[in-house]
């Protein structure tokens, strides 16, 4: 039996990779992918905690997160496509009009 700590370490590494991707990559699609990695890192820790406690709560939450992630991906990709059609660019630094 693999101890809980290992799962959490993997989860933390995955989350850090995702976060780094969000901040460092210059492509909106890659950023979306990084967000998915972060979500899945969280899923992993949920499942690990659930297993450790001997309940199914963590797995149930994970299903919810996956559903939301799917929806989010659909909306996010649609927005990205719309942005691309509008600006011919996928660089997030090009979209700075969200200010006064």
């Amino acid at each position, binding site marked *: 039996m693999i101890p809980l700590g290992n799962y959490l370490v993997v989860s933390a590494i995955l989350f850090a990779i995702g*976060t780094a991707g*969000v*901040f460092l990559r210059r492509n909106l699609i890659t950023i979306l992918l990084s967000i998915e990695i972060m979500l899945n890192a969280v899923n992993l820790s949920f499942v690990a905690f659930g297993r450790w406690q001997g309940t199914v709560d963590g797995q149930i939450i994970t299903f919810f997160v996956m559903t939301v992630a799917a929806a989010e991906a659909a909306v996010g990709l649609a927005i990205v496509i719309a942005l691309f059609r509008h600006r011919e660019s996928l660089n997030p630094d090009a979209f700075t*009009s*969200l*200010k*006064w």
Partner: protein
Amino acid sequence: MLPLIPLFPLLGFAINASMGRRLPKAVSGGLASLVMLASFAVSVVVVWQLANLAPTQRLIEQTLYTWIASGDFVLDLTLRVDPLAAVMILVITGIGSLIHIYSTAYMHEESDPEYARYFSYLNLFAFFMLVLVLGANFVVLFVGWEGVGLCSYLLIGFWFEKKSAADAGKKAFVVNRIGDYAFILGTLLLFVRFGTLDFQRIASAVAPLATDPDFGPLSVATLLLFIGATGKSAQIPLYVWLPDAMEGPTPVSALIHAATMVTAGVYMIGRNAVLFSHAPETMAVVAVIGAATALMAGTIGLVQNDIKRVLAYSTVSQLGYMFLAMGVGAFGAGIFHLYTHAFFKACLFLGSGAVIHALHGEQDIRNMGGLKTGLPITYWTFLIGSLAIAGVPGLAGFFSKDEILFETFAHGHTILWTIGILTSLLTATYMFRLVFLTFHGERRHQAPAPEHPEEQEPAAHHADAAQPSHQLHPSHSSHLHDAPSAMALALVVLALGSVLAGYVGIPHALGGGNAIATWLAPSFSARSVTTLAEGQVAEAGQNGRGEAAEGERGLELSLMAVSSIVAFVGIGLAAFIWLKRREIADRMAATFPGVYRLLLNKYYVDEIYDATVVQPIRIVSQEGLWRGVDVHIIDGAVNGTASIVDGSSSLLRRLQSGSVRAYAGSLFIGVVLILGYYLWR
């Protein structure tokens, strides 16, 4: 029954104000006159009921509802008729009706909506005045008191497109406010002192007290009330609004000067006779102010050239007489003069209105003259009114004025009596100057242009507009039309009143019963709880009065002779100067140019008030309150708040770069910091 008296005019007001603009003139004017007549009829019935009661029981009271009930303090909306109020309601509704009827003809040149507006104000005026005299406590009286102030503003400024009229209305309103402020203070003081605002309860609480020694609370309270009265009743120092009130239509002047408004102050003092007689200091002030006003207004009246202005100053002067009477404790005589004055002053004002109407808006008596033949009805009624006001024996003014002068003399105020006699001479002189210049001599067309052309009445200008059709017929160009029937009716009735009204108060010295003094007496004494004791008091009072009259009969007769002679001398003087030797007047004006100019400019009182009160207030308001407090402190606080927000936001604005990634970064750092804090705490 009692509430009907004020409610009829209120009904007329409601109808004319709400749908008057769609009603034809005959309906709106007729309705307004009809409600006044109905109110008069109810008043007559009520007074008849009152007269059928025993003299000491004469009181009809009706509590409509409890207006304010707060702990111990209960204030009822109560209407009460006693002998004093009875005289007042008859004057208000009776003379008021005649003025309404007169107005239907006088205002006929106005458009339908204006006509209805005029009559709605007129009815409202009567309503408030009736509330004022019927109210049984200070608060109800004050409702009427303020109401007549409002209506005078509306009516004086009726032709509000004209700046002078709008200004005059404003002046009346503001000057009245000053008096009303003092009036409220006086009322509050009485409430603090007696815990009630009901006139009778105050009177019976005061009655057993000793007279106020030396400027005690009663003197202060009554003095404050009197200041209120000077505002409403146009006495020094607050009389300045009344002459300017000429800007309103002439029947309005008649209403203000005769039946309503200016009588309020006199009535209020009469209503609180017991209270005032316990404050000798105030009484002395009232008497001196009254006499001074009478004399001052009389001298001004002597040189004015506007027909209505002369009459206005004569009103101020006659009101001075009434206050003189009140001040010497002759309340009955004061109210008697109020009542007779209402007849002849209404008659004179309506007569002057008829003259102005006939001359298409001419008000300057220097441009009149010789109207006797053209306007016979107006002439004769005006003459009767003038004889009455001058105090010619046998007419109304004689009895009441004589009563006042006699009481003044009998109470030992010889100086005030002298002033009164002098004023009486002035009254006779300026009234007959007016009569002779207006109606006698040659018609003068091209006298100097009016000093205040803006003061001419628009109603008459409308008439001017209709004139070209007349001028098509050359023979009609100088045609004078005498008063139309509605106006003539009012004039004739009032002239009759000016002759006959005095006969209710024939003094004992002439073998009369002085019925009005006996009738009014219960109103001026406190009603005690037991009617028996009260009956004795009244009886004793009457006996005392009778004996006194017996002893002073000779004195009264000789005083009467003096005042009659003075009246005739005044008329003779006027006849000599303005009928026979017109140049004397001019020569006198030329000999004493200083005095003449002083009088013509009304002692420069308006200018003095302007310099000492209006300008300082204006400067303080404009430079201090507006440019200083408002601009710098109040606006400064508001603008300062805005610029602080503006400055701090321009700093904060830099954080909002629009870069989503930067937002996400700050979010992430924030989460890390918060979590870190809790983990490593």
